[in-house]
């Protein structure tokens, strides 16, 4: 039987912790409930849960991407959930890959930015392209 297991429902507080598939695709270690900080050991291989969740102790190696308490209210924030997914490894190579040009060699915004790289909600180099 295949276990999916990408939603970890906390046995203590019933918080639903959403374990985003890419970071947890091949994962062995601890995560913790965003609601009550209970630690669980889990192991995923190719996106499938192969062991756990087993109540444990210690530090979390990876936090859930998002969580909801039993009333459906979202739980986020530092120390509770991981920041929005970024620079996730390519599942086939294990390496992070980003692009700045399309297949036909023209500029596209395909790499992480910093706040100072932005004009409003655009990458500065894209905004420059369309100036005027």
């Amino acid at each position, binding site marked *: 039987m295949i276990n999916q297991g990408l939603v970890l429902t906390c046995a203590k507080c019933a918080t639903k912790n959403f374990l*985003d598939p*890419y970071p947890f695709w091949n994962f062995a270690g601890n995560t913790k409930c965003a609601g009550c900080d209970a630690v669980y050991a889990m192991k995923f291989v190719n996106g499938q849960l192969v062991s756990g969740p087993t109540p444990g102790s210690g530090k979390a190696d990876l936090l859930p*991407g*998002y969580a909801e308490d039993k009333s459906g*209210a*979202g739980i*986020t924030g530092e120390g509770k959930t991981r*920041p*929005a*997914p*970024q*620079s*996730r*490894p*390519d*599942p086939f190579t294990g390496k*992070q*890959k*980003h*692009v700045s*040009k*399309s*297949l*036909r060699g*023209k*500029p*596209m*915004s*395909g*790499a*992480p*930015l*910093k*706040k100072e*790289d*932005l004009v*409003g*909600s*655009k*990458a500065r180099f*894209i905004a420059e*392209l*369309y100036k005027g």
Partner: protein
Amino acid sequence: MATPDFETYCQQLFDYKTASGKPEVLKGYRVLSCTQYILGPSCASYLAELGAEVIKIEAPRRGEPMRHTTPFNEPLLFPLSRWVPEAGTGLGFFGANPNEEFITLDFHRPEAKQAMLELAAKSDVMVQNYRPGTFDRWGIGYQHFKKVNPRLVYQWLGGFGGWGPGRVRASYDILGQAMGGAFGITGEAADRGGTPAKHTIWLADYWGGMMAAVTILAALYWRDNVSGEGSFIEYSQVHGVTRMLEYALPLYGRYGVRRERWGNWDTELTVHGIIQCGKSSYPGSANPQEAEVGYILVSAHTDEDFRKLCDVIGRKDLATTYAKHDERVKAENQSLLYGALETWAKDKTKEDVATLLDKAGINNQPVWNAKEVSEHPHWKLRGAVQWIDDPYFGDLHHQGPFCRMSDTPPRLKWALKPVGADNEKVFGRLLGWDKARLAKMEEAEVI
């Protein structure tokens, strides 16, 4: 003046490069879209392609879940939002969100509820696809909106409908297709494994979105021409799949016969199916995806075409033995005939087979991959696939609009925008929020 031939006439009328100079058929209609994944977003996006002003409302900072659903890391489009520039939106978001304005609201907050009521008062359509009753619980359901805007057309898309014992489960395209009956008739035949097949495209979602858009237009017609009143529309994803089952249900009702899976062949027509060709179209390619053998659709079910096909493959004996379609279409004979075709095609590419069948006047079509679709001049000329200068993400390859209209053509303006990119524009213009109010709402994470 002479009437141009039909091809010239169509090309002149429907050239997508001239669309921007023509009016938009739904311009002036405002649509609020509180949608996620594909089913709801595709509904709103069809209206946006037709020119409606569609305002997509997402959760602050993070946006809707489809932004975080992507096949690969590489093609993420950055920034996800001005607040999270180091993250991006995945390609799964493509195709169901073009031409829209993007704002943020946290529906759990009372300030957001008030903003929603004010937006609804100034809109024609609301589309949402949360679980049944969620928006009513939050005070932003149709019953609430109707009080502030009785002319609003409110489209809710759900899995199983808003009432009945099975309504509270979550639905996805794949569940809808399983429960609706589509997988029961899609996949391999019993003697070839019998496995149901999931379609890679989210057909139930995109079909459902289209059907909901059709219903919205019908409700707007009724409002604007008959009643003056809005209405509440429910679309069930599962029922939508069942609606597509064509004769499977009448067949069952009449004879008690369950229509079965029949793979890439056809239960009613022979030859009318897909065969394997033994050689790759890209010999020597280092790309393993291109090393695979090809496939081609062959359609030669009339007696005349079948005779021609037998000539082409050097099996005139089959034309004699199976001269009558009633014989060809029998299950055991289909296996024999498609087997003979694949034996013939074993040393050929799909293009080799197409060339030979074209020469004989037999209808066929190689099974194309994304590269072959993208590079074909027919689709490029018609704008079915386009490279667009997206104002937010640069050079993007994208599907063109879903239809052509001579005087009021749909068009592709941009593929998507970052989360909350239009907060200032929309809240300022529609609700009169000034800079200080926007900053306060942003700080409180209401937007």
